[in-house]
């Protein structure tokens, strides 16, 4: 399970990817680097989010001041905003900066 406080102490974090919803961009089993101290996000960014106490990886498709919509790149195998709707910006953990 995801411990928010232990993750935010450092600007960068490496995560191991499980699942196929971001393929072919990010393959299952690969490792990625995220920037947790980033302040500005934009449409198209691949982000790590806290969703029901799990870290999920998706791409931002829409965002405003308080809410974001996220989709997987592999739309045929992705649980995302098409199912669970918008999520709060506060659930953002960081932006993927290295695949």
């Amino acid at each position, binding site marked *: 399970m995801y411990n928010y406080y232990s*993750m935010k102490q450092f600007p960068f974090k*490496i995560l191991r990817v499980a699942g196929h919803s971001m393929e072919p961009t990010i393959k299952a089993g690969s490792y990625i680097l995220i920037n947790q101290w980033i302040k500005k996000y934009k449409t198209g960014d691949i982000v790590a989010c806290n969703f029901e106490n799990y870290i999920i990886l998706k791409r931002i498709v829409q965002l405003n001041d308080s809410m974001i919509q996220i989709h997987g790149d592999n739309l045929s195998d992705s649980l995302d905003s098409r199912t669970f709707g918008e999520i709060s910006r506060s659930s953002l953990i960081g932006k993927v900066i290295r695949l």
Partner: protein
Amino acid sequence: MKISQKIITTIGKLTHAHTAYAHCDLPCGIYDPHRALIGALTVIRMDDIIAELITSHPTQDPEFSHTMARAVSIKEEHAEIVKHEVRVIWGDYFKSEMAAKYPELTELVHSIFTLGSKAKQTIDRQNALDLLAKANRFAEIFWESKGITTKRVKAPYKPEEEIVLPVL
């Protein structure tokens, strides 16, 4: 792999990096064998299209080469879809006690993998039909494990073979 990627991967392995879920190991509980059945139907259809191509293009012109390459690629992709969908349901959905209730399951899954591989390697229509038959049986077991009855219907598109659907 780029050097930066190698470094990230090495550090990630050494530090036992947290896991980020890109679906479907969330777990979300969404399982459905239908995609496997469509994959098996597609393999049969591609075998038929390939056979038609061979017959209709005796000189193997550029049109033949192009269409053949695409049909083979689609057959390859969908045979893998069958294997993948069955693998996910078998590995993530069927718990040991459920698998014990269906003793044929392990052998059934293994035969699907074998037939799926052969479907990639050959244009053997009977093999593709056997793959669909096994995938249908897998679907029946899956839905039965959820207490849902099934029916067999003829797909309303070529190759017009039977597939198992849940009665919802």
